[in-house]
């Protein structure tokens, strides 16, 4: 028992030291701050948004940025800032839901084929080859075309393609870990395969997966907003950055703020994810590699 306690306090100490090193990097601090703010906006838009995002105000149509409406108003007099803030909820959800199931499925499949190899691995390899032969967006919109537009169908379509990338990454990591002595020791001790894969090998393979997940969430926002823009993702009148930009498309010369402002939110959030991802990649990279 004492060993367990000791190891858990040691673990807490290690996490503390890791956070200390992370927060001494300016890029991580900036990225973390952006993400923290994004999550806050996504969780509490009703508190943080100054106006109702759907309320028409026909006396204030397409007004430029001012103190009353910092991001201006759209062609129905809706406050653009409030719409951008409410869109955080949808877009941050996209970052999460478009990646998390792909991660869970991909990691499980990748760990299994990486560990067992054989015919399953060969079949897996061919499937990967076939899936990466399609441009990502083309395959996703083809699947959305079959399922119909909308957020949930978009998650299904992205997950159906995206899991492959996690599986490929995990497979490579597990195969590298499998060659280590501790894996052989586990087998000698008679541990079940499940225990060796999920308790011993996988925990040692998590760093690259987490780093990839960070960049992938940024990509999910880019992809999701592109689909929203094309009319295949979130549907109006829902506030989503791609949808908002599409709504402003016809007023680029008269009301540029309608499209410009949501784009800034996309860039900022993407930047937050990649700054945190890059910093984690640096910090988690094993020394000497």
């Amino acid at each position, binding site marked *: 028992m004492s060993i367990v306690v000791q190891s858990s306090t040691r673990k807490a100490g290690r996490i503390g030291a890791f956070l200390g090193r992370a927060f001494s990097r300016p890029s991580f601090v900036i990225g973390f701050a952006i993400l923290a703010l994004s999550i806050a906006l996504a969780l509490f838009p009703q508190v943080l948004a100054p106006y109702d995002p759907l309320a028409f105000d026909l006396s204030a149509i397409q007004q430029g940025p001012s103190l009353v409406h910092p991001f201006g108003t759209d062609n129905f007099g809706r406050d653009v800032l409030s719409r951008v803030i409410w869109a955080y909820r949808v877009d941050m959800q996209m970052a999460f839901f478009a990646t998390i199931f792909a991660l869970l499925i991909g990691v499980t499949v990748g760990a299994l084929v990486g560990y067992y190899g054989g015919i399953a691995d060969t079949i897996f390899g061919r499937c990967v080859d076939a899936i990466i032969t399609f441009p990502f967006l*083309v395959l996703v919109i083809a699947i959305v075309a079959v399922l119909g537009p909308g957020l949930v169908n978009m998650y299904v379509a992205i997950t159906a393609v995206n899991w492959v990338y996690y599986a490929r990454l995990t497979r490579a990591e597990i195969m590298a870990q499998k060659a280590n002595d501790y894996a052989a020791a586990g087998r000698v001790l008679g541990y079940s395969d499940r225990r060796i894969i999920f308790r011993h090998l996988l925990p040692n393979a998590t760093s690259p997966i987490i780093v990839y997940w960070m960049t992938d969430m940024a990509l999910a926002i880019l992809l999701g907003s592109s689909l929203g823009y094309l009319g295949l993702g979130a549907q109006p009148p829902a506030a989503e950055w791609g949808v908002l930009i599409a709504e402003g498309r016809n007023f680029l010369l008269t009301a540029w703020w309608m499209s410009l402002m949501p784009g800034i939110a996309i860039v900022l959030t993407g930047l937050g994810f990649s700054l945190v991802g890059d910093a984690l990649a640096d910090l988690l990279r094993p020394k000497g590699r």
Partner: protein
Amino acid sequence: MPSLSYLLARLLQIIPTFLLVMIFIFLLVRLLPGDPAIAMAEAKATDAQLEQIRHNLGLDQPLPIQFLVFVKNTLTGDLGRSIMLKAPVTEIILDRLPTTIFLALYSVLLAICLAGPLAFLAAARVNSAVDVTIRSVFQVGLSMPVFYIGLVLLTVLAAQMRWFPVGGYGTSFLDNLHHLMLPALSVALYTSAIILRNLRASLIEVLDADYVQFARAKGLSRRIVMTRHVLRNALVSTVTLLGLSIGNLMSGTLVTETVFAVPGVGRLMLEAIFARDYPLIQGLTLTFAVLVSVVFLLTDIVQSWLDPRLRQS
């Protein structure tokens, strides 16, 4: 040059992959909720008309037979008829494909012109103000969706400054270059951000490598060291990266064609989706897959030509 047997082995590898690609595409349309015939027919179609559509599509046959027919037709270049445009899918695609390939090559060229010199500049003085500025600007570029870059370029350079047309393709070669400048640039900005990142890292690594130090020490001129040793090695990883990001590039052209109303296969794909034109969607998806695998193949060949070590495996 890579050996013939290497090329043959590589070509044979494509066959099982393509079989799976065909199965995916085949199942995609079969997975339609409900009856594809109903989805394709007009709302007021009679039962007899529906039966006719089903028969035309071969949907009254068992699935394996349908698949064999699909493979046979595809291999003979018959992709069916577009519902929306009422013409053979193959013809429509071949008509629109050159525009997209032109756009894709144009953006790769722009991306290399943009990223190449800047990567050298950044790698020459690591962590200098120049390096940090270049990297930050491209980091922001990586976080920008292609359609957004496109809209900004469209508004500022086309609508306001009137330097470029707001859309379309043009008639002569120079006219094409002029029309496609902004769509190509929108895709190029994203692609160049990926290239720059990789090229900078590999330049730093190569410049520091023992054999480059040695080449310098034995008195080779700076130019020869640069072209023969540094550039050639940095090129291998850049070519690989460019090849692997062909999917990204095609996704980018799809979006940018929509923003700038360029009549290529990307925009056609979107039109086909909104029109629920399944034969056309099927044909286009296949076209994209063929394009990507051709580029993957070319990448492998160029790669093994640039780096003889890769030919062994």
